[in-house]
């Protein structure tokens, strides 16, 4: 297998006495679209938050291109090439879409208080470069007509896209999408899935996503990791995940341990 670009090893997160993630390991291949799925409360978002430094790890490591990510302060993670979106939109309503997208450029720009206040040439140059990136990303996601609108007045679907666009403006190597199509109708989610695939081609991205929409996950992703109760119960190509009795049972609410015995039987017979 190729060297993974992003790798979680033995991730364990505890909240008080509750073990939210228990020894979770998986590897994301460069250039792939990798989905993390699981029933409600399986720990998918916790896993994202732990990987981006929001929750303290009780054990385990996260590596980005072989380098430790879990010791990096959270505001430096994006500089290592990892950008993310949030399940609940985190957008300052009063800013315009263009300003929100510029936020994605923050770590790639320098202009400080003085340069900005006095509109020094360096700050203006930076702003022009930013605006080029912002415009091209906005065009990909169909936001170009809304750049001057305050993000708070946009409908939900467009705000969701704005959040993804902001992460893309960071020009990351790995993009983490936390439920990108939640709240969208079928047509919208299919279209957005298509956009995500295009972005991957165009920017040479690796995408790691958490999603509930099975149809989208199965059609979009190259690899799927399934979590249940904070543990990895399956990690495979989507077509095999679809047939995995453990996964099917997990979604129907069975105890994975019982089904696992069943799976071994299937495997040995097969």
């Amino acid at each position, binding site marked *: 297998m190729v060297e993974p670009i992003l790798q979680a090893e033995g991730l364990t997160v505890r909240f008080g006495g509750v073990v939210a993630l228990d020894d979770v390991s998986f590897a994301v291949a460069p250039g792939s679209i990798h989905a993390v799925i699981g029933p409600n409360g399986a720990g998918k978002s916790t896993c994202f*938050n732990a990987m981006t430094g*929001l929750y303290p790890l009780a054990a385990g490591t996260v590596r980005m291109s072989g380098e430790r990510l879990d010791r990096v302060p959270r505001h430096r993670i994006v500089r290592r090439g990892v950008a993310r979106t*949030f*399940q609940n939109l*985190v957008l300052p309503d009063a800013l315009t879409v263009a300003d929100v997208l510029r936020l994605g450029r923050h770590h790639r720009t320098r202009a400080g208080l003085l340069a900005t206040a006095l509109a020094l040439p360096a700050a203006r140059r930076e702003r022009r470069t930013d605006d080029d990136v912002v415009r091209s990303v906005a065009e990909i996601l169909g936001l170009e007509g809304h750049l001057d609108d305050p993000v708070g007045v946009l409908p939900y679907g467009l705000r969701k896209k704005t959040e993804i666009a902001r992460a893309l403006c960071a020009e990351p190597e790995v993009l983490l999408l936390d439920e990108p199509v939640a709240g969208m109708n079928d047509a919208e989610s299919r279209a957005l899935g298509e956009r995500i695939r295009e972005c991957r081609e165009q920017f040479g991205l690796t995408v790691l996503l958490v999603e509930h929409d099975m149809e989208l996950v199965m059609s979009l992703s190259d690899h799927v990791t399934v979590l249940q109760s904070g543990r990895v119960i399956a990690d495979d190509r989507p077509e095999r995940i679809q047939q995995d009795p453990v996964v099917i049972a997990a979604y129907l609410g069975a105890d994975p341990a019982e089904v696992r015995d069943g799976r071994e039987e299937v495997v040995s017979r097969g």
Partner: protein
Amino acid sequence: MDSLLNALASGLSLGALYAVMALGFVVIYRATGVLNFAHGAFLLVGVYVASVVSESHGYLVGVVAGLLTGALVAVVAETVFLRNSRTHDHVTLTILTLGLNLLVVTEVSRRIGTETLPLRDPIGNDVVEIGAITMPTVRLIALVVAVLAITVFLLLFRFTSWGLAMRVSNQDGEVAALMGVRLSVVSWTSWAIGGALAVLSGLFLASFPTPGVTPALADTAFRAFPAAVIGGLGSVGGALVGGVMLGMVEAFAATYEGSLGGWAHNLSGISAWVLLLVVLLLRPQGLFSAKQVQRV
């Protein structure tokens, strides 16, 4: 040694009053997430009414009237102003209470004018002596009343559905709603309790050795801020400990500032704030507040 004991005693009684004040402040913060800058207004208007009513109807009626006024004004602040605001941003609502405070304090100050209104408590300027300790009788009573008030509050907090709602709603409005608790009721009762507790402490703070009710009394309520924040905003136990700590530090500063040289002149007046700065620099969340992890 005597001055040490006296500082302890007066610090304890002052601290108990600050704790009562801070308790009301924390109750309001827990219920609505607002830092109540109108605490001084509640205190001043209640004590002012107590003074006016006591002139015609006697001290006890005056006290009851004052406590009710404080509670009523607080409820009006919550139900009329905060609840009907279009914004739910806590920073903006906090500034709203600052405006309410200024409005009420300006009007009451105008009515008081330059006079010092007496409270007409029957104890007056009696002093008790217990061993080496000499303290105003009123301050001893204040200590007892404060401890009683705090006890009653803690019992309510622990054993009533209001208390349960208070404990939960701070963390999760939905859970509280599921338990059948009406948040609007919790919220206005909390303001009522906060207002009454402010007046209760104000009544004693305006008694001997303080000469009486002046507009400056409203500023005393500022003590509730460091007391509540030192303990950790939102922590009931923290408010109590913070209040007592403040009272102690202030009493000790008052006792010893004279012997510390020129730089310490009037140090007791700002000791609370210096303590606050030190605590927050070491622990930005206060002493007793659990470390908060943000959920996204």
